[in-house]
């Protein structure tokens, strides 16, 4: 839809850009964790393809109301929200909610409309088009990445509220119900059900430090000595009130709790691993309470915690190196300082002072700031890097370089191939008990391309199906179950292998979109910042390791070859034809893109 309707002349914040709110064929059905909602648009972060997804209950209710997909174009004349109650669809005024935080607006809308409404909101950051503004839901779930909240804000759209009281059809309800129940039993029988669930993704914190992949001090190193003060156990001991699950989830990773710090106290969902990595590691916040408070503030302001953690750490390093001074910033700032984080988040969300520069994202901020700050602006294509440091992890490095939305782990997670041997689930890895031993230098080989592509296809398929992948990825619940459920629910019999072919087509199409939209597209667009291939890791288990520029080129070349892309990373005519994308071939020919 984006490829057909949004040509290069239309910018991310132009009224003509689309915000596509999509469920998948499994969303809202009876199987583990079918609660996903996806947001697709032209990216404020990269100018190319963007999507971001969230769990919660919104997608299922959208389907019960009778809608698979909402396509939002244009721009409201004044702040508005979209109200959907089954067949009734209204654009309503939202003046009283505009300016409110995401959580406050959701609370007030629920109070006005009723608890049975599922609501998504943006905060001030979305209203002010911060390029990494998120869309929030269910008091702690976010479609965090790529600036989808800024696109929503550019349309003057504060919120969408939906109530669905209809039923969704199933080809073979009896069998699908039986198979769904069996799926729950099988997930419960996995070792990770008891072992992984209590801490959720935060359980990765120990392991990420023990093997040295934890982004720390603006990716200067990959190990944070205080990690046991910001890990999953710290959440359970000091913050947690309840587990908080998305629709149908048997293994809720959401940990809802309360935090108290010198900067304030708050109820907050999380922090999950990524937020711990980017605020606890990258900005060096000292305690889980501080990380949780930064998390809360991001949620309320409507800012992605990952991008924010990268942007703030970059700003602190600029200050330490004398590239930005306290007059430009408005005060002195430092790592390990919650006040610094609180100060900068508020500036960013409101685009005040230095915040106006930082709201553009680390790529644009570094380009405007110059003086060598591009070297340590940690992003790919303009999207800030998420929570895994990769200078001794070539497969994961390649995953970040080639993710269609920019430097995000959502598309492929292949660290298991870099730092461990055979593994079937993340729970296996965490339970493997790695200790702080010096890690051997990773071998760079063409196998990385095959690992990354396999993971990209698997994970994208979960996104396309509208189902969470964590039961498969973290617990090792087998993919074939999803194919069986897909077949019973839709009436179209498919094997997992057949479904994976959809992913291949998706990857060619999203790449083609970005090639068309991003000026002068070539392999440099896929390159990391200099720090990640020129500066050896400062300390920790991977001390001294770094991939060379030649390694990066080799990784990209192996990947491009396997994808059927040319040396600049552009899909060839034959590749696009083989994927059934004849209309893209014609468009590329007309635009001279081959």
């Amino acid at each position: 839809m984006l490829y057909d309707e949004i040509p290069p002349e239309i910018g991310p914040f132009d009224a003509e850009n689309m915000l596509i709110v999509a469920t998948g064929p499994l969303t809202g059905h009876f199987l583990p964790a079918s609660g996903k909602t996806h947001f697709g648009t032209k990216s404020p972060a990269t100018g190319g393809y963007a999507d971001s997804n969230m769990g919660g209950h919104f997608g299922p209710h959208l389907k019960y109301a009778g809608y698979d997909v909402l396509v939002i174009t244009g721009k409201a004349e004044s702040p508005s929200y979209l109200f959907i109650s089954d067949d009734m669809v209204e654009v309503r005024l939202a003046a009283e909610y505009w300016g409110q935080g995401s959580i406050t607006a959701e609370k007030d809308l629920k109070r006005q409309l009723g608890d049975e409404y599922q609501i998504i909101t943006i905060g001030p950051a979305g209203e002010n088009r911060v390029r990494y503004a998120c869309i929030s839901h269910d008091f702690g779930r976010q479609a965090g990445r790529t600036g989808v909240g800024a696109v929503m804000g550019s349309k003057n759209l504060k919120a969408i509220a939906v109530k669905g009281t209809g039923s969704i059809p199933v080809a073979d309800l009896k069998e699908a119900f039986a198979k769904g129940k069996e799926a729950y039993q099988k997930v419960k029988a996995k070792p990770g059900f008891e072992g992984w669930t209590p801490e959720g993704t935060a359980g990765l914190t120990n392991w990420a430090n023990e093997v040295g992949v934890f982004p720390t001090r603006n990716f200067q190193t990959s190990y944070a000595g205080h990690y046991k003060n910001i890990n999953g156990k710290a959440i359970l001991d000091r913050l947690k009130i309840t587990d908080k699950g998305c629709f149908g989830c048997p293994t809720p990773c959401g940990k809802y709790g309360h935090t108290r710090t010198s900067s304030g106290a708050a109820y907050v969902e999380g922090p999950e691993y990524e937020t711990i990595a980017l605020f606890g590691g990258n900005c060096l916040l000292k305690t889980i309470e501080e990380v949780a408070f930064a998390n809360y503030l991001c949620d309320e302001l409507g800012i992605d915690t990952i991008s924010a953690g990268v942007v703030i750490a970059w700003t602190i390093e600029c200050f330490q190196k004398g590239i930005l001074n306290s007059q430009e910033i408005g005060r002195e700032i430092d790592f390990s300082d919650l006040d610094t984080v609180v100060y900068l988040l508020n500036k960013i969300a409101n685009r005040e002072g230095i915040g106006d520069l930082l709201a553009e994202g680390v790529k644009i901020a570094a380009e405007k700031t110059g003086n060598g700050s591009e070297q340590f602006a940690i992003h790919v294509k303009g999207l800030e890097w998420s929570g895994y440091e990769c200078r001794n992890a070539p497969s994961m490095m390649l995953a970040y370089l080639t993710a269609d939305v920019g430097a995000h782990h959502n598309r492929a997670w292949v660290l298991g191939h870099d730092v461990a041997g055979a593994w079937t689930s993340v729970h296996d890895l965490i339970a493997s008990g790695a200790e702080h031993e010096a890690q051997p230098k990773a071998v760079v080989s063409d196998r990385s391309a095959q690992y990354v592509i396999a993971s990209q296809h698997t994970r994208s398929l979960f996104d396309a199906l509208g189902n969470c992948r964590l039961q498969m990825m973290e617990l090792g619940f087998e993919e074939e179950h999803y194919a069986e459920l897909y077949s019973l629910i839709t009436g179209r019999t498919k094997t997992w292998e057949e479904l994976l072919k959809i992913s291949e087509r998706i990857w060619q199409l999203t790449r083609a979109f970005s090639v068309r939209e991003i000026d002068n597209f070539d392999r440099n667009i896929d390159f990391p910042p200099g720090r990640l291939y020129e500066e050896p890791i400062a300390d920790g288990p991977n001390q001294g390791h770094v991939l060379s520029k030649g390694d990066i080129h080799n990784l990209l070349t192996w990947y491009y070859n396997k994808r059927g892309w040319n040396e600049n990373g552009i899909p060839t005519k034959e590749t696009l034809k083989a994927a059934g994308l004849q209309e893209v071939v014609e468009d590329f020919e007309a635009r001279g893109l081959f």
Partner: protein
Amino acid sequence: MELRPIHENCSGCSICRLACAIENFQEVNPSKSLLRIEARFPAPGDYCIHVCDQCGECADNCPEDAIQLQDGVFIVDQDACTGCMICVDVCPRDVMFEQKHSDIPAKCVLCGECARTCPRNAIVLVEEQESEVA
């Protein structure tokens, strides 16, 4: 038998409600569910499960005697019910439901599907004696 909610085990996933709707109405439509999950956010930040405990308030207040105890479960007699909805008003747990496409209210028939489905044992089926001891 009786349904017993264990609120602190609930993570709000609501799959119990979908299981209930499929089992009792053969529809993928949780709005037809005969139990409620109350999500109390942002504060105090927890879940409260509301299930029918077969207390009989509905039957006691039915002017038509259309709700009868059968094998420990209060059942609505669809022929005798006039749809006055007094039972909906008096239910202390708010789990007597008006239905969208019917004049007859609906209530839990103790099929136990919610308890069997819950992956976290937040709703359990217990013998009544066990329940009283607890």
